[in-house]
């Protein structure tokens, strides 16, 4: 295997120079291609959707397998914990249960009244539809895009633009879907905008991710009531993606910028619900009407749609 390389000749030097030139040209071409791709991505952000879905399908099963033993260890620790503090927790829960029962009776009465009122008003409400329950298998912890991968894809009916809800609250919405996996844009991503309502005051606002652990609340609408730390934010249902009433977070700093701690954390939420968009806006609603009737003035001036082609008059013999 070890063989003395041939002595360097001028041809060898020339070949080296040629190779250096070719390599420089290739490098330049590659960088230029990259810049071109960025411009294309700006013009057409969904251009590589299929490739992205394919990559998701490759990566998600890997993490499903890798994290399985860690999940098992975590569950074992949970069981051990459950046994350790069982008595204390039991007493605390019994105390809470008493308060909750009273609250529940009031809520049941309220719900009955509400149902009656809605029936009187003939209020039609869209229903929430569960599409899939899936596991979060991984999440990017880099500082550019905050997303997570879930193990459900087009095969389960998951497409881009669906709300993803954990046990504790809102997780995010899907942005890409492969055939067995999908990517979820988390609340903390700078591109995330969640329409919320402040439970105590009833004002609506937007919760925006800033790529930091806390979210920001912006664009508050309504009377300028002072906010308090501890105010709960739930989804308002505006925009038609997220169903109303899902916990989003709690205000931790009422001064501007208002900081919000998210209610659900994607690491804690092992399983999430992926639901249908609450009130999906029909895709063709925004399209312009091409076969609208042309005004008579435009037709007279010849500016309307072209007249149906008539065969040229055939001269009679």
């Amino acid at each position, binding site marked *: *295997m*070890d*063989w003395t*390389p041939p002595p*360097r000749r001028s041809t*060898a*030097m020339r070949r*080296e120079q040629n190779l250096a030139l070719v*390599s420089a040209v*290739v*490098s330049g071409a*590659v*960088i230029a*291609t*990259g*810049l*071109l*791709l*960025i*411009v*294309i*991505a*700006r013009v057409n*952000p969904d*251009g*590589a959707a299929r*490739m*992205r879905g394919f*990559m998701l399908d490759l*990566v998600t099963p*890997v*993490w499903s397998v*890798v*994290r399985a033993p860690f999940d098992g260890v975590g569950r074992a620790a949970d069981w051990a914990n459950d046994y350790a503090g069982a008595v204390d927790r039991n007493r605390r829960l019994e105390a809470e249960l008493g308060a909750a029962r009273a609250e529940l009776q009031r809520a049941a009465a309220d719900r009955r009244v509400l149902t009656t009122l809605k029936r009187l008003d003939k209020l039609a409400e869209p229903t929430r539809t569960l599409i899939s329950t899936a596991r*979060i*298998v*991984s*999440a*990017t*912890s*880099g*500082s*550019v*895009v*905050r*997303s997570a*991968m879930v193990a459900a894809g087009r095969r389960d009916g998951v497409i881009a633009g669906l709300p993803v809800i954990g046990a504790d609250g809102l997780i995010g919405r899907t*942005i*890409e879907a492969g055939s067995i996996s999908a*990517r979820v844009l988390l609340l*903390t991503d*700078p*591109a995330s905008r969640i329409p919320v309502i402040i439970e105590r005051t009833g004002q609506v606002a937007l919760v925006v991710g*800033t*790529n*930091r*652990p806390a979210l920001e609340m912006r664009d508050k609408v309504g009377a300028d009531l002072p906010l308090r730390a501890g105010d709960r934010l739930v989804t308002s249902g505006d925009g038609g993606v997220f169903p109303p009433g899902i916990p989003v977070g709690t205000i931790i700093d009422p001064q501007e910028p208002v900081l919000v701690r998210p209610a659900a*954390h*994607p*690491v804690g939420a092992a399983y999430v619900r992926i639901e249908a968009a609450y009130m999906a806006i029909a895709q063709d609603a925004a399209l312009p009407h091409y076969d609208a009737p042309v005004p008579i003035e435009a037709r007279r001036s010849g500016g309307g749609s072209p007249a149906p082609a008539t065969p040229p008059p055939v001269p009679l013999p």
Partner: protein
Amino acid sequence: MAAVRQHQQHRLPFRYRDRLMAWHAPPWRLMNAAERRRYWWGHWRLAVPFATTLLLMLAMTAPLLVPAPVFPHVALLGLFVWTTFQPGLMPPWLAFVLGMVADLLFAQPLGINATLFAGTAGFVRLFEARYGHHAYGFDWAVAAAIVIVFEAATWVLMGVGGQPIPLLPLGWQALTTMVAYPVVVALCARVQRVAFGPGVTP
């Protein structure tokens, strides 16, 4: 230049590509069957830098342990380290391919990491040709400078690509990436020693 390189060859790091390329192979008829098999199977080493960097990139999508976006950009460090260890096996076009994978994996607009990885590999290659083989601290400083420029360029290009992002988290990531350099370089050095043998030609 070739003469100088010939003279320095005994203290340069061992570049495996030179041994594996067909024109440096021993004559086919002088090898027995076992040697031929060993020669051909030895080509897996060509993929070692690419595969290692790809695994580091995959590690960046691991289920996150902390809510703050502070995971270091280990793929960039891997790219830098392999471009210094085995420049022939980490050319800019291969870095471009790695960057495309990174874009798809991290849900960034296609082309951002591709451009920056290729640019990084090209820059390190030129820099090494001029100022190559320095002390450990110097390499760390160069890596730190590259990381800062990389994160700043990411911020600019994300804006160009139509997804503007805040700058502050990128600063945190740059810091953690600089701190993570020794770990990544130790890991890659271990891989290099296993795959390519001792670091210096005997």
